[in-house]
């Protein structure tokens, strides 16, 4: 039987694995409300207003208040909805987003109490494919949620979500192929180590791939300018029109968790993961903070785009995905393949 687990090359005790899981989950979920607050604050600054500043010092408790308000609301659903799927859909969304968190490398292997520990949840040998697999499953959360709501607006949103997934998953996947070829591995830690070896972060040699991947990542998170599945002006709330209270809070969290996770993946693939520029080599304990700093920087970019760009139209989104992004990603892959072989 072939091994499907990670080839970590060393043994990690069970207690360390459990501890790691808890810490990564806790840290990952701590970043989410910070990004949530940052979005509201930064959007406020972009839009010439102050943003939340009433709940707690500097409005720091605002995310807590938001989520608290939603959770205390009455749960209701339309008569036409399918109850089981209606409840399941947001859970799928948030589960898939947090599952991807497991492969984000926050650092390399370190020694803790004499035990070698990798600063990541799990280093699967399929690496980045794991992220794409869960990214694809995440859309079931949207499609099922829209379908099970039994509302026409939700249905239209769900259809848009499905179409968007197909269009952008392909381009995003192809964009990563260049990185994988340059690194010679699918494993995220080895991709970062390849960037350390060359002393060149992949966003420079793989600039086209970087742009295509980032665009596809925006489409995956359903954020402006690709927020068509929820397009508030057109479809009221799209797939989450009928959700209120906890269900909506779950979708809300999944959206921000997706931003965090995709920022982390982008940072790992293209921006050197835990590495610092100019050959600065800090002690190992700094690595996780470098990754988190990069996550925040990329999340800021997400917010910036939201404050700037209008929404694309459905057909424009499709033709942009298939006629521009996909050919770009394909050419990028071809050129990279030729260059990798020649050198």
């Amino acid at each position, binding site marked *: 039987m072939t091994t499907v687990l990670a080839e970590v090359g060393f043994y990690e005790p069970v207690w360390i694995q459990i501890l790691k899981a808890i810490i990564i989950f806790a840290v990952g979920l701590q970043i989410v409300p910070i990004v949530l607050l940052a979005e509201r604050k930064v959007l406020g600054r972009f*839009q010439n207003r102050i943003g939340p500043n009433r709940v707690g010092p500097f409005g720091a408790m605002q995310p807590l208040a938001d989520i608290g308000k939603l959770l205390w609301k009455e749960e209701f659903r339309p008569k036409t909805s399918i109850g089981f799927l209606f409840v399941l859909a947001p859970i799928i969304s948030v589960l898939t987003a947090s599952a991807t968190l497991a492969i984000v490398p926050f650092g390399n292997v370190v020694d803790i109490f004499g035990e070698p520990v990798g600063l990541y949840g799990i280093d699967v040998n399929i690496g980045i494919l794991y992220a794409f697999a869960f990214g694809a499953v995440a859309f079931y959360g949207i499609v099922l949620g829209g379908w099970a709501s039994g509302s*026409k607006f939700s249905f*239209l949103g769900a259809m848009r979500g499905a179409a968007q997934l197909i269009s952008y998953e392909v381009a995003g996947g192809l964009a990563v192929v260049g990185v994988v070829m340059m690194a010679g591995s699918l494993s995220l830690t080895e991709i970062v180590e390849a960037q350390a070896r060359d002393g060149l972060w992949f966003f420079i040699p793989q600039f086209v791939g970087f742009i295509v991947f980032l665009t596809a990542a925006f489409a995956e998170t359903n954020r*402006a300018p690709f927020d068509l599945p929820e397009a508030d002006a057109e*479809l009221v709330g799209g797939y989450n029109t009928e959700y209120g209270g906890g269900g909506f809070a779950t979708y809300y969290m999944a959206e921000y968790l997706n931003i965090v996770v995709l920022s982390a993946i982008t940072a790992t693939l293209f921006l050197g993961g835990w590495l610092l520029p100019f050959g600065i080599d800090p002690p190992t304990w700094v690595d996780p903070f470098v990754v988190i700093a990069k996550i925040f920087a990329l999340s800021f970019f997400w917010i910036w785009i*939201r*404050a*700037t760009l*209008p929404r694309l139209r*459905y057909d424009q989104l499709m033709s942009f995905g298939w006629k521009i992004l996909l050919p770009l990603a394909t050419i990028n892959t071809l050129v990279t393949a030729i260059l990798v072989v020649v050198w």
Partner: protein
Amino acid sequence: MATTERSAYRQMEDSITMDARLERFGTVDGGEHELLTVNLGPHHPATHGVLRLLVTLQGEVVIDLRPIIGYVHTGIEKTAEQKSYWKAIPVVERMDYLAYMFNATAYCGAVESLLDLEVPKRGQYLRVIHMELNRIMSHLVWLGTSALDLGAMSMFWFCFRERERILDLFEQSTGQRMHTRYIQVGGVMEDIPRGFEEKLREFIAIMPKRVGQYRDMLYKNEIALQRLKGICPLDEESLLALGVTGPLLRAAGNPWDLRKADPYCSYEDFDFKIPVGTEGDNWDRLAVRLAEMEQSVRIIEQALDGLPEGPHITEDRKIALPPRHELGTSMEALIHHFKLVTEGFRVPPGEHYYPIESPRGELGCFVRADGSSKPARVHMRDPSFVNLQATAPMTRGTYIADLIATLAMLDPVLGGIDR
């Protein structure tokens, strides 16, 4: 439920079936079984009020749509019949709630025509200043909400920042931010206060720059270009056939503007241009309104520079209230005041239609007088109501996202539509 009498309105609603749609319009490629009827509104985030659109969709394509109105019907026209002439001003102001100065001017203009009353020049200029400020403010609300419908949310706040300045100016000169009741039969309620001119000059200095910034945000944005250029055009003839006026008609290339075509309130004194478009698409509708804001600033500047001295309201004590200081010394003033406040002034029998150019098009007020102190009939020709007819011809066969964008570009104000 027992067999209840269904109102004619409900029956009309029920009669709108998918089959009826199909017979009339067919589908894009024969997919008769894939039609979806969606109710956009009355509480939908992008219908700018409580408009309800019954949309038949094939996938994302709009096959047909039918606007259903009446959700904010307030009976203002009927209410106005119960009020004396000068007390009807606050109610007519509340029809098109983004163009209150215009509503009041149209109504007062009609009454003044019936009375054969001359408004003093200063009063006319003050009306122009306030109407043009109102026009800019209305266009700002339109621009902000339209951009929001396109998904560009920041624009909304930038527009409302300038709108706030205008509302502050209104507050200073009239005491109210919205529904100011500033326009009065015979002139304006009060002269502008001290400090108003400086604040207004600050505003007209900054506003053209702001319009330039809005342009930068939209004209250099590829997504905005794609969403607006060539989208939902309608030619001049169709627009005229539907009775559409205002920026929508001007975007199609017809320079019809009542300020030039049939000047009122001394608009002939000012030098300004009528921006027109060429294609009549959403892009032109945007460009025309942006240019109109700049022209309005020009008009305000000229009106402020050339503001004549003199009374701001007619000296005819039978029509306008006497100034406060006369009340303590003049018996006649006291009698006039008492008569005006209790009964109001009487208007000789007759009827008059007074059209002006509101931010949305031709806003006309029809007043019939029967010789008493209350109007026998007040009717508004509201441009939003007429322009709304153009929604279906513009958007048939386009995407639902374009429907929303076009509806935003129509700039309907439901308070004016339902009245």
